[in-house]
Every structure is written in C-alpha cells, then in structure tokens.
C-alpha cells in the first residue's frame, strides 16, 4: 500500500479522459447513463478475474495465473454438464464457485507442493482447463441456466448492474480492506517483497500462496457465474483472452510483476479504463479483434512510458 499515487494511475486517468472526450466528440449520443451500465456490465467478469490475478501476482515468487480464462470457461460449462446429467439446477450457482475453487486449488498445489514455476504450472493447467471446456462440450454453448439467475445477471439498480453492485464491488472493497488492514494482507505484501525474509520471520508463505491461487480460482468461478446469469448459457470460450486482459489490468493497475507492490483499487480503475476503451471502440464499429490489439498496445505503451520516465528521472 503506497500512499503516493502511482504514475501509472495518473497516465490511466488521463487516457480515460482522452477516451471519453474522444467518444463525446465522435459519438455524442454515447454519453448517457445507459453507457455507464453497459461498461460496468462488461467490466464485471474482467474485474473479478483481474482481482484474482492481482492477488496471485502480489504474492510474489514469480506468481502469475495464465489459467484464469480456462478456469472461467470450465467453471461456466462443467456445472451445466452436471445438471444435464441429472443434478438439480439450483446447484449451478454454488457449483460454479466450487468448480473454480477446486481448479484454483489444483494450481496452488502444483505451485506450492510440486514447486513448479507458476508460469509453467498455470500454462499447463490453462491447456487442461480451456481445452477441457471445449472438449467436454464439443465447442457448443450449453443451455440449462435456471431462469431464476437471469434477473440478477441482467438487472440494474441506480444505473449499476446487479452483478457489479452485489459481487464485484463488495469483493474489491473486501480485498482492499484485507490487504490494507489485516495481518493476512501484510503477509502478502511481505512475502511478495522479500520471500526469504518473510519465511524467516515465520510467515506461512506456502499456505498464503495456496490461498491466493485458490482465491483466484474462486473469483474465476464467480466470473463464470456472472457470465451464466448474464448470457443465459455456458459458453466454452467465455474465458478467451482473459489471461491477457486480466494481466494487462493488473499491470496497468499498478501491481508490480515482481510482487509485493500495488493495490487492488488501481486494478479496478484499470479494468474500467480498458472496458471503456473497448466499449468505445465497439460504438465506433471497430472490429473486436482490434480490442485485443489495443489492450496489448496499451499495456506495452503505458509500461514503456512509466519505465522511460523512471530512467529519465534517475539519469
């Protein structure tokens, strides 16, 4: 937790203003309350996944979770397959969360018990999870979402979509409190900053890290649930590209890739910027493939500017 505002966040805010101003100029009718709802609706899934990604990276030890998209895809389809096999459809909501949690725990065990490098471990599970989601469903969207979920997934209150208001926002605030004001949070920063010292002072590093991966899985499960309630079906490709966008959001939000530095509210800001950018492009009828390109370019450029500014100042 740094009290100083990170330069990346300033760049982000400026970029966001630029995007909004550009939109207002090119498509004035876009500036409306309904756009806010749309942006937040699209943000919810990314926000949840990016929160998990941020936690994993914060824990340090080269922590990264490439498998987030795969976890979302599998957690969105596997419960529907179970329902198809005869389980009551009310179990879908807890099913998504449990499925995500289980997948996250697998990641955590691979990293903490087998001591695999996180990049490689989650790369392998990314294959298994995302490939599994596609293979189990033969690539087809799965029906069977209980209609009970839809009003929650598509509703809004005060212009804020319900999934964002009831799930993403509380989780972000809870995590911010957890990181800033509990010993568990201080442990995360300590072990991310210097793992050896953290071990020496008796922080249960492996357990905390396992919990972080499990949390990332659980959050991916939440994102899967949101996608079900919003889209009304379980799509095996719903998590596509989330590893890139969630990593981008975490980096742009000021999380250091080395761990131990950054806060989650910056990540939320970064998510909102990215989604505003994407929705804006959508309004201007720019093809969706461009969005991936713009996300990538934003990532590289903002980090370059940040680094060059640092080099400039120190030399």
């Amino acid at each position, binding site marked *: 937790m740094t009290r100083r505002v990170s330069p990346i966040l300033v760049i982000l805010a400026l970029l966001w203003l630029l995007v909004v101003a550009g939109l207002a100029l090119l498509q004035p009718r876009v500036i409306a309350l309904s756009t806010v709802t749309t942006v937040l609706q699209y943000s919810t899934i990314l926000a949840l996944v990016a929160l998990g990604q941020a936690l994993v990276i914060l824990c340090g030890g080269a922590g990264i979770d490439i498998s987030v998209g795969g976890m979302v895809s599998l957690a969105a389809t596997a419960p529907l397959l179970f329902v198809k096999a005869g389980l009551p459809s009310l179990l879908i909501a807890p099913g998504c969360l449990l499925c995500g949690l289980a997948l996250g725990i697998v990641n955590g065990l691979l990293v903490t018990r087998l001591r695999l490098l996180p990049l490689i471990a989650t790369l392998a599970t990314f*294959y298994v999870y995302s*490939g599994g989601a596609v*293979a189990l469903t033969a690539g087809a969207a799965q029906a069977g979402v209980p209609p009970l979920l839809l009003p929650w997934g598509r509703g809004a209150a005060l212009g804020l979509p319900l999934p964002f208001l009831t799930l993403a926002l509380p989780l972000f605030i809870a995590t911010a409190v957890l990181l800033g004001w509990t010993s568990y949070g201080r442990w995360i920063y300590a072990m991310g900053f210097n793992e050896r010292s953290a071990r020496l002072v008796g922080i249960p590093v492996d357990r905390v890290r396992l919990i972080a991966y499990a949390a990332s899985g659980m959050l991916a499960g939440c994102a899967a649930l949101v996608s079900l309630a919003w889209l009304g079906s379980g799509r095996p490709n719903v998590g596509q590209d989330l590893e890139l966008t969630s990593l981008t959001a975490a980096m742009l939000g000021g999380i250091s890739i080395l761990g131990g530095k950054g806060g989650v509210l910056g990540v939320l800001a970064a998510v909102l910027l990215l989604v505003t950018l994407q929705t804006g492009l959508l309004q201007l009828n720019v093809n969706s*493939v461009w969005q991936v390109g713009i996300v990538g370019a934003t990532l590289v450029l903002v980090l*370059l500017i940040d680094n060059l500014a640092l080099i400039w100042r120190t030399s």
Partner: protein
Amino acid sequence: MRRFLSPFGGRESLLAAGCLASGLVFAYLSPYFATADNLFTVARNSNELLLIGLGMTLLLGVGGIDVSVGVAMGLAAIAVGRLLLAGAPPIVAALAGPIVGLALGFVTASVVVLGRIPAIVATLGLFGVYRAAIFLALGGSWLSGLPIGLTNILTANVLGAPLSLFVVAIAYLAVFVAMRFTPFGAHLLASGHSEAKARLFGVPVRRTLIAAYVVSGGLCGVAATFYVATYRNVEMTIGGSLALEAIAAVVLGGTAVTGGRLSLLGTILGVALLRLLQNGLLLVGVPSLWQTVVTGLLLLLVLGIETLGGSQLLGRVTSAFATRPARGAAR
C-alpha cells in the same frame, strides 16, 4: 551448466522412452500409425514447431520468454504469402519470411531489453498487437490458393530427404556450434543463470539478450516460410497456440524456464513427443479437441515425475542399456 553437451541426460532419456512407448502403443492400436507415410507427415508437421522451439530454447535459456512467437510467425507468413500472390519469385518470397521475422524479433528485443518491461508482460502485449495486425493485414479473409513454386523447392529431394529437413538440421547445428564453440554460449547461459553476476563478470548481458530475441525472431520467419510452403494458405488464427506449444515442448525437453540451462536435443525430443502423441491420438479416434488437454497433462506429468524424483530412476534404467556418454570428458 553445460548439460546439453552430454547427449542423454535424465530428461532426454525420459522423453526418448516416452516417444518409444507411445510409438509402440499407437502402432499396436492403429495399423496406419507406423507407416512411412504417416511418420513422414508427422515430421513435416513438426518443422515449424522445431524452428520456433529452437528460438524458444535460447530465450528460456537466457532467462527470457516470448509468447508472441506464434503470431510473429503469422505476420511473416502473410508477407511470404502476399509476395507469392503478387508473383514474386519463390526465392524472394522465401527470404521475406526471415527478414520480417528478424525485424519483429528486434521489436521484441527493444521493448523487453531496452524498454525494461518484464518479458512475459511485454510479449503478451505484443501478442495482442500482432494478432490485431494479422487481422488488419488479411482484411478478414484467408490467403489461399498460393502458387506451388515455394512448396516445390522446400520439398525437393536432396540426398534422399526433403530440403526442409536440411534447413532444420542446419539451424540446430548452427545453434549448437554457437553454444559450444563461441563465447555466445557461455554468455547466454551465464546471463540466464544470474544476470547480475554475469554483468559483474563482464558478460555483455544486454547484447546477449537482444541477440537471443533477434535469432528467435529470425527462426520464426524461417518457420513462416515453411508454413506457407506446407499449407499454402494463411488463415486468421495462424500461430495462435504455437507459442504455448513451443514453450511446452522446450520445457518438456528439460530447458530451465528460469534460465541458465538448456537442452537442444531435449527440445527436439519434446517436439517429437508432442507431435507423435497428437498424431497418434487422432488416429486412434480421440477428437482433436482433446489435443490441448493432452498437451497440458503431459507437461504436468513430466514435470511432476521429475519433481517427485522418478526421472533419476528412469535415467538410471535407460542408461544401463546405453553406452555411457563421456559426460566427464565433455566438461
């Protein structure tokens, strides 16, 4: 450190045994698997992965990584394809691949090394950018029906084997010689082992890193030429999963992701095992959708076995049947 010099370490034995075992199982299950025709197809389909894997071996060995290699190959392939369609002579088109590849490798190198952005983050960003660029360059349609001139050259018989085989072999040999007999090899492994220490010893770390990224880019370009020659079309999704496959193959081969240790033979065997499994499963009737799952499980299996100490046992068993390589002499 110079583990790649002793041809059969524990990991290589494990992979060779894996290739042999899966080969026997598939040959038993499918009468078509062990035919010369099929094995030739597997070899031909491995070319791009072998070349990109070679670059990835160097990158991981030096402590870097590049997840944009697949889409970089895609961009280079578009250049090759467009030139062929415009009626350029096949040789010119073939050279366009490596040239575009080298240029893209230089872009990656400047962002990672000069811009000081962590390699995994920077190349994920470039992955997005390149994919959008592929979309832009193709304009929403495929390049298809490319002239056959380039294909004829690369499949032309030289001493009883296709020319492409020789190109791959020369690439591996060149890297082997550079690693074994020039300072580059020592610099690369030292930088990968510990950047700070290598710098203290006077190793030109940045130059070594840049060289690794540029060489990897060039190899992607060569792979692009091969791709166009083999498939004679370029589709929108080209190279999307190739980088991850290459990382999987290289890690399977025993190259340390944290740098400082690499195995060229391991990469070859890793690619062979991946491609044999994919081909065999397809022939046995497993839908191709399961291929990525198998790749992931294989990666976990091999790394898990090694962590749990199984590979030492297996290495001991296999080396009992082989004449022990002069491991001590190589040092």
